[in-house]
């Protein structure tokens, strides 16, 4: 660790992993409810479990992004963080607000939570992924502003690297676009139109800038390749991301009451969204092949390459599968969407946060890399989680294809619930893959507590 204030990243990473475990547990509950309809009913109905599952995902990824920023910004800026105290304060604010919100979901009926938190004053609740009470949303904005202030002053007062500037643009965009979460008109079409400005422009826009800059940072560190080369490719890749992704929003505007030209604009531009992901894959492998040092943290390199591959598969390939309007006409809102969502979020965002944690956590704990046994275990968890996520995606894709056929495409379409019963086998298989994922995650947590084997030593003298 080069700067003492980088240490504030540690609680963020620990919280992220803790919430990740919670997310997966609720994922398993939902998976079971798919085949065992009254499991935990009426105590935890599916919609509550889903809210917890998706909200925990978003919150822990945000913890991960913030931790990553607190770790890498001082090092890139070559100075201490503007205010480590503020970072710790915001950590507790965010954690407590997040925990209270999740407890609210679980302990109070959602309508009661809405009443309790004064949703009448400014109704923003009850929209997918934006279920948080308005007061929590305001809290998120305050935390985001405090965080940006802290990071921004550090960056502007220090060395301005491309990694830093791209990260700062991404985080600023994240905060700005979240403001659309407060716009909830009665007009359903308008509501949906601007809802995507948060959801799509986050995950297929500004979050990719965050992803790109974290990946670039880790690659600079573990490969020793010249910063100039990595930085200009970072620029080109994120340029392609925004060129394709902004108009690519149109692939959500096919069937929600928006004008029909979006079917053309959305198809054409989103068909090109895999390109930046493909460039990222080629870029990551190229940089690792041209490495100028053997970094002792093999696990971090594995995560970095895994991110590049899985983001391309999940976001790029699985996104493309159903992005063209004539295909989407049949697949819109089916398990195909769920399949894509799982692999894209895992491949792009879960894995980049785990990449950063894998790289930074040993350093935060006073080693350049973990002991060999710990790394072996971590790599096992990588493969278990990644392979099981591939299977989850494949099973959901199978379920989705059958669902489309039975319910939408055949000459004699059957009702939703009848179709669901016919494809139950895929949900069972998905749940089994989910259990394997949980085992992988447990191994991941255990890997932090394992010591021994040959101590991983630096091959180069520097501990960058």
């Amino acid at each position: 660790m080069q700067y003492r204030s980088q240490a504030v990243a540690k609680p963020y990473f620990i919280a992220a992993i803790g919430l990740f475990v919670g997310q997966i547990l609720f994922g398993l509950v939902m998976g079971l409810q798919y085949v065992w309809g009254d499991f935990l009913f009426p105590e935890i109905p599916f919609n509550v479990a889903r809210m917890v599952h998706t909200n925990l995902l978003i919150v822990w990824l945000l913890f991960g992004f913030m931790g990553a920023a607190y770790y890498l910004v001082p090092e890139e800026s070559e100075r201490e963080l503007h205010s480590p105290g503020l970072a710790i304060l915001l950590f507790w604010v965010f954690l407590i607000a997040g925990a209270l919100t999740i407890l609210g979901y679980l302990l109070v009926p959602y309508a009661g939570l809405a009443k309790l938190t004064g949703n009448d004053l400014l109704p923003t609740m009850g929209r997918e992924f934006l279920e948080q009470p308005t007061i929590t949303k305001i809290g998120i904005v305050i935390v985001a502003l405090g965080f940006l202030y802290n990071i921004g002053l550090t960056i502007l007062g220090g060395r301005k690297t491309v990694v830093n500037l791209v990260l700062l643009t991404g985080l600023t965009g994240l905060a700005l676009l979240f403001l659309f979460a407060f716009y909830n008109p009665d007009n359903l079409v308008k509501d949906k139109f601007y809802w995507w400005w948060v959801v799509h422009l986050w995950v297929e826009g500004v979050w990719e800038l965050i992803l790109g800059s974290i990946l670039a940072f880790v690659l600079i560190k573990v490969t020793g390749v010249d910063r100039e080369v990595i930085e200009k490719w970072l620029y080109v890749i994120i340029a392609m991301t925004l060129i394709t992704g902004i108009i690519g929003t149109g692939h959500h505007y096919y069937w929600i009451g928006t004008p029909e030209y979006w079917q053309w604009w959305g198809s054409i531009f989103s068909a090109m969204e895999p390109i930046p992901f493909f460039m990222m894959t080629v870029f990551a492998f190229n940089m690792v092949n041209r490495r100028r040092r053997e970094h002792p943290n093999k696990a971090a390199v594995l995560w970095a390459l895994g991110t590049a591959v899985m983001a391309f598969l999940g976001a790029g390939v699985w996104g493309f599968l159903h992005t063209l309007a004539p295909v989407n006409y049949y697949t819109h809102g089916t398990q195909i969407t769920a399949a894509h969502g799982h692999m894209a979020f895992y491949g792009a965002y879960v894995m980049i946060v785990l990449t950063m944690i894998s790289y930074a956590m040993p350093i935060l704990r006073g080693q350049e890399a973990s002991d060999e046994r710990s790394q072996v275990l971590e790599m096992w968890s990588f493969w278990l989680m990644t392979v099981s996520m591939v299977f989850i995606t494949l099973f959901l894709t199978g379920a989705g294809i059958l669902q489309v056929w039975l319910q939408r495409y055949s000459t004699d379409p059957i009702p939703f619930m009848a179709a669901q019963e016919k494809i139950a086998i895929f949900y069972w298989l998905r749940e089994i893959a989910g259990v394997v994922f949980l085992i992988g995650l447990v191994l991941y947590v255990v890997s932090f507590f394992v010591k021994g084997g040959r101590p991983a030593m630096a091959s180069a003298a520097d501990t960058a």
Partner: protein
Amino acid sequence: MSEVFTKSMARNIYYGGSLFFILLFLALTFDTDGTLPKRDNRAALTEQVALGKKVWEENDCIGCHTLLGEGAYFAPELGNVYKRFGNSTAAIVGFIKGRPPEGIPGRRSMPQFNLSDEELEAVAAFLKYASEIDTANWPPNIQG
């Protein structure tokens, strides 16, 4: 000869390209906003429908159902449920009202939300309004 691939040019393309496509996106948004009145069924947006949307949101219906294909995939699409239930708001009200509080053994069940009559009528009116939005012929058939 100067460098062929410069960081500053890559940066210019990032900033210029992003700005270009943001402007294009805003132009298309502007056009969309002007076209929506012909498609979004805003004439039917009564106070009752607005209340219905609020009931829809405050019970997190989107956590199980899809609405115009967006939401969760655990329960049926409701964008066209008004039509699927024979163009009847009464049928929608009856269904929501009749959910057993303890669920149906072994099956996916909808919770009993204990809505008032006013709320029930409102949410049904909201679903009727949603079914009359011009969705370019989606879903492909009545099953949603």
